[in-house]
């Protein structure tokens, strides 16, 4: 037993020495716990991208090592992980975090250590402004509201819309962004009604909507309430309207509800609408993991890609990498990834289009009409 242990330690030391000149790219997200299913796509795609980079000769000849850091989407764990990474001189950049609350906890630690980070999934509006070292290749919550207004008018031709929002920061941000853009595009917002997360009876508000006869109802909220809203609306005989929402409704819970047929939501990535540059990724992902990549996977794949490009161009220095990322600031310089072209604004937020998927026969499918 002792001999085996000695052997293992020696092996670790030897291989460690062999990888001494590798570049660590840590990926921090939830890989266990309640939100592990979100982290799974991130993990799979990051590992895949790492293997592809190494197969192509690494970054300027140096191997890439994808290191998984599990923080369970818990802000406390995220801060611990961030401190560890900030103090590791071999870490030039971080891919993470997943949940906005985890990102917000890790953000000041990376900022103080001048360690650049790219989040593939945190959509909270305030993240970008808080640190010059934070970038993200996912859109912000308010962008979804703006996009949905555009999509509702230009792709679906809705003229009259009612808005049914939950009283929380996420929903109200979405609602306000939607209303602002709707006004500019000339969509008539017939009425706005609110609900709280513990509500189960939505009929009084829906009854008002029913009398207004809107083309569609926008629900900037979460799936558990939205599934009740669509059922109760159908119960009241609102058969003509379409329902739509943002990523809060992007939950398989909606699929169990036959009344949700036709509901559509925003998503950053759709395998069948992704364009030719994504074909190789989708094929490789399917071959390795036996399923289609979701948007978490696509964004993580691009995140690692952007990080690798930055290290290749700027070297291992953290501040130089940050400056390089900040210089990707226009459509021409954009990183051409599988989930569209990524370039950053002055806050490090990305300006990227969204896609739309809808429920058809109890499954999420790409909407026929997209805004690309």
């Amino acid at each position, binding site marked *: 037993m002792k001999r085996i242990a000695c052997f293992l330690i020696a092996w670790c030391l030897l291989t460690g020495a062999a990888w001494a000149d590798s570049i660590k790219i840590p990926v921090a997200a939830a890989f266990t716990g309640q939100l592990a299913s979100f982290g799974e796509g991130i993990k799979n795609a990051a590992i895949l991208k790492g293997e592809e980079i190494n197969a192509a000769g690494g970054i300027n000849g140096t191997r890439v090592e994808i290191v998984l850091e599990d923080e369970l989407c818990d802000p406390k764990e995220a801060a611990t992980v961030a401190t560890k990474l900030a103090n590791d001189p071999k870490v030039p950049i971080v891919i993470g975090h997943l949940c906005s609350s985890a990102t917000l906890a890790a953000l000041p630690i990376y900022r103080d250590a001048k360690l650049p980070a790219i989040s593939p999934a945190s959509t909270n509006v305030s993240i970008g402004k808080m640190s010059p070292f934070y970038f993200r290749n996912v859109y912000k919550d308010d962008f979804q509201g703006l996009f949905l207004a555009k999509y509702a008018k230009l792709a679906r031709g809705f003229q009259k819309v009612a808005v049914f929002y939950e009283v929380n920061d996420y929903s109200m941000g979405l609602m306000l962004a939607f209303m602002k853009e709707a006004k500019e595009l000339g969509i008539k917002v017939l009425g706005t009604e609110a609900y*709280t997360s*513990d509500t189960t009876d939505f009929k009084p*508000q829906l*009854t*008002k909507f029913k*009398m*207004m006869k809107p083309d569609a109802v926008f629900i900037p909220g979460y799936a*558990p309430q939205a*599934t009740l809203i669509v059922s109760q609306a159908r119960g009241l*005989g609102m058969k003509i309207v379409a329902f739509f929402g943002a990523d809060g409704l992007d939950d398989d819970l909606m699929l169990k509800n036959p009344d949700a047929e036709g509901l559509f939501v925003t998503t950053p990535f759709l395998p069948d609408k992704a364009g030719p540059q994504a074909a190789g990724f989708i094929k490789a992902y399917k071959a390795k993991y036996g399923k289609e990549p979701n948007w978490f996977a696509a964004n993580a794949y691009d995140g690692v890609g952007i990080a690798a490009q930055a290290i290749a161009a700027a070297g291992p220095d953290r501040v130089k990498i940050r400056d390089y990322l900040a210089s990707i600031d226009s459509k021409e310089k954009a990183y051409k990834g599988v989930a569209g072209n990524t370039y950053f604004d002055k806050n490090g937020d990305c300006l990227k289009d969204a896609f739309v998927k809808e429920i058809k026969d109890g499954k999420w499918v790409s909407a026929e009409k997209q805004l690309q």
Partner: protein
Amino acid sequence: MNSLLDQSSLFLQQLVNGITLGGVYALIAVGYTMVYGVIQLINFAHGEIYMLGAFLAYSMVTVLGLPFLAAFILTILICSGFGIILDFIAYRPLRKAPRLAALITAIGMSIFLQNLAMMIWGSQIKSYPRDVLPEIFSKTAWNVGDVTLSWLQIFMLVITIVSMAILHLVIHRTRIGTAMRAVSQDKTTSALMGIGVNRVISFTFAVGSAMGGMAGILVGLYYNAIFPTMGYIAGIKAFAAAVLGGIGSVPGAMLGGGVLGIAEVIGAGYISSEYRDGISYAVMIAVILFKPAGLIGRQIGEKA
């Protein structure tokens, strides 16, 4: 939205919604008020019986594959059993203890049952699949202009009214009902007159819990959302309804439930949907300020 017809059909539809909601509050409130009537205990675990009713019926229909009617009756029976057990385990040992002790126990039982349900069924919202319920529930019974009344709403109203009527007959026309009224007036004297006080209390819990469980099944069907914390909000609302009507009074609970349900829906429909709960509680507070015993509660002086 402009014409008078639209306005009046909007009001009618809101009234229909409000009466349905009020009926459910009344069913739950009856359980609170009956128990309070006999042992002066606010049974905070009553909302959890309601929640268990919803879950039991759901499991019987989806897991065991029972027909809905069988599940409905079985669930009501099991819930009344739960009521008896709840009283036996949690409240009977404290019958002679200060009232505060039993109240704390009630809150403890409420938390315990909520967590138990979370362990058994998980915290995610459960919904009935469409094909397991009688087809008629998803059909519209009456549709005039823009006012819709579904068969499920009619079923709920009929069940509510029939069970209230039966309850009224039981309390006023049967021996056990007479015994209940006697115990609620004076426990010691009733015992001296040969009434089995504990038996009467068990019966009260059984009937109250049956009503609560039934309300749970109906709400589970109506909103098609069943989750472990559903009893909390519904319990608080029903408690408010019981107080509004006059706690201890069964007709008061019915009236209180109706008033609260309509106030909530009209408030959400015409004033502000953000403050719908605030509006319904404001109505309750206003009533209590002017009539401290509730709408048809007994005057406080009558009972010590």
